[in-house]
């Protein structure tokens, strides 16, 4: 009698091990860690019900953000993915623009890479506070538009926005360079104490800067209201 299973005696049922088996779970793990950190920050910040942009408040949120991300293993790709996850709201508790932007800035400032690109061109909403306190030696290129307080308190890093930014760009920056390829909003360079802001398009309004230089389409405009 012929064994009907004879054909299968050399059949391989074991799946081949691929690097993908390791890469995808590692990515998921990193994303879960970033989400967990953000949740901790939000839990801290929601205690006061309404989140106002105040100097002390921002500093406090950034300090908490730096604490919660300590020891996390992530890279620029994870930060970009995190931005999209924040927007889609599927895996995140909720998006509070201010703390979210500060959290992303904290992540960018502590990432091992010195040069980083965030492709945010296809995000529906703009994130605030991107490039906050970007330190010396770091270059952050953001593809897409950014919200308010872009490059606020910039600390020697180089921020390039391949798009437009909102109001208060470069507010309180001490040194470094912000390049905005398109336009930027009002109060640009408010309380700016050093560094440069280069705007390729139009500046809708200048802030009261202490020091530093602001350029519009290559021309210096510091001190002049447009």
């Amino acid at each position: 009698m012929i064994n009907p299973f004879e054909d299968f005696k050399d059949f391989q049922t074991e799946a081949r091990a691929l690097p993908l088996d390791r890469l995808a779970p590692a990515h998921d793990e990193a994303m879960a860690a970033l989400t967990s950190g953000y949740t901790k920050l939000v839990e801290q910040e929601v205690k006061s019900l309404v989140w106002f942009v105040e100097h002390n408040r921002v500093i406090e949120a950034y300090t908490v953000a730096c604490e919660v991300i300590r020891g996390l293993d992530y890279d620029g790709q994870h930060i970009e993915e995190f931005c999209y996850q924040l927007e889609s709201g599927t895996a995140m508790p909720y998006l509070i623009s201010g703390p979210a932007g500060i959290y992303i800035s904290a992540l960018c400032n502590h990432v091992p890479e010195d040069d980083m690109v965030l492709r945010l061109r296809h995000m529906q909403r703009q994130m605030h506070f991107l490039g906050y306190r970007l330190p010396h030696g770091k270059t952050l290129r953001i593809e897409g538009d950014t919200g308010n307080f872009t490059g606020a308190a910039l600390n020697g890093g180089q921020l390039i926005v391949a798009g437009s930014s909102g109001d208060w760009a470069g507010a309180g920056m001490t040194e470094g360079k912000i390049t905005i390829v398109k336009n930027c909003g009002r109060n640009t360079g408010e309380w700016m104490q050093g560094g440069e802001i280069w705007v390729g398009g139009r500046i809708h309004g200048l802030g009261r800067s202490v020091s530093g230089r602001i350029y519009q389409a290559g021309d210096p405009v510091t001190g002049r209201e447009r």
Partner: protein
Amino acid sequence: MSTEDGEERQVPAEQAAALRRTLERVWPLVRRRHLFPELPSPRLGSSTSRVAMEIREKQITLNLDYAAEISRLIPAETVLTALLDHAVSHYTCCPWDLTTHLRLYARAKDILGDADQARKATDLFMDVVANTHAVKERQSPLPSLYRHAPRDHADEILCCLFENIWGMDLGAKDHRAEVRRLSAIPYLDKRRWPASLTRFIRGIRPLLEDAQAEAAQDQSGMGGHGFRQYRAEEIEQALREFAKEVDSPQKFVEIFEDIQNDLQASGHCDLEGMGYGKGCPVDANWLYYMKLAENYALPVKKIPMRDSGNLHPHSHRPWEIGQPVREVDPWSSFGKYLPGITQIWERREGEIFGVKEKTPDCLIIIDSSGSMVDPRARLSHAVLGAGCAADAYLRNDARVAVYNFSDAPAGGREHLPFTKSRALLYRVLCRYFGGGTALDLPEITGLVRDTEADIFLITDMQITNLDHTIARLSALHNRVTAVHVGKKPGALRFIKAAKRTPNISVFGVEKPADIPRIVLGSVRSYLAGGKAKKKIVEEPAYWSWTKVPPRRK
């Protein structure tokens, strides 16, 4: 086969024959490794394009020129096995069926906005999934093929991605920066495919935009995955499920228009069932409602009706050996075949005596005034409910007529006589007038006069002459199923009035989940007494073979 100087030449007959023999030898092995998918034997054929294969209605046709060209670099067996692995993985893994394919395409279209880019992105994603599945689960020799096959820019990037996720050297140029974002996507996790596709598109978007700008070839080296590879039954099912999943009719229309050419090219011309066909422009709105309605099945209560014209068992006669046993009455000899004793039924044609439960025809009266939802803009529960009702009657072999009205006395109406054509019915049901609301009552009563047809009225009850409507419908002997959409004041008046009339049943619909609760022709008096119940008691519901029932008056 194309040569380096670009001129075309035929594959030599001996080489083609050798490849065909190899294919015959390889195919059973590939089938076995893929656990015997139900696919026809693949063919080798010439193609004008440079793609490796084409799939039409599950028939895999490998490009002879392509196979011959690559066979000069690696063994023909490896080439054919790899190509077949790729094709079969599309059936056994991704996209698996048209429903999944449509789901992925709709997601890509949502993100990209452009049909060509969405199609390309979906194709690339499905290629990555299918190939990865074949390499991981089926030990496919696809890496050898990718190492030696000619590549364009998109293929180069795919190869680099495969190097990353398969951990093999495919000789790709360094595109690590581009593929870094694509390398950590869980391609083989089917539940996460929509989210994975979103990430995949985010990673390859620059490539898609470049490809469009340079008007590069729109198919990958393995060939595109148009929608014409599916069979009619799959298309039916996919459209049905997709109609249920989409948020709005516009979304369905948008996606359907993108794939319509492919579906027509595949030659599915059954307009009644499918709602599309060659040379017949389709209003995808009514196709949407048609497919959505197929997800619901409403019960119809039958009523005693006269029956005539068919062959019916009339009397017994003895059964003899050699006569067919199909008509044997098993009760006449307790299940045994005894010649001369066992009785066989004698059938006669003509009017029978008594009554038999049947489904009457139905007149659907649908309100398409301004207070109703425009079925083209949003999901109209009225059109969906009416479509479900029409399907229910058609399934029971009854005919359906439609009276679509807005301000009927002012001419805002369309009347379709009794028909069994689904396409015609849905066309009229989806017509939207958007004016005032008034019924031409003499006309409606004229349509059902001297018939036993049911009436199915679906409206928001914001009818100007509602009281007259109630009075007229109450006076009819026909069964009336009235469905009110939403809870307008008129609906309460109608419900109150309907309590006093035994032939009217009222149902409310506020969401699609309410539709299955409608029971067509469910006259209250059937259950709780009244005229209709009396009718049934007087006349037996099922006529007996042994006794001749009284002729129905």
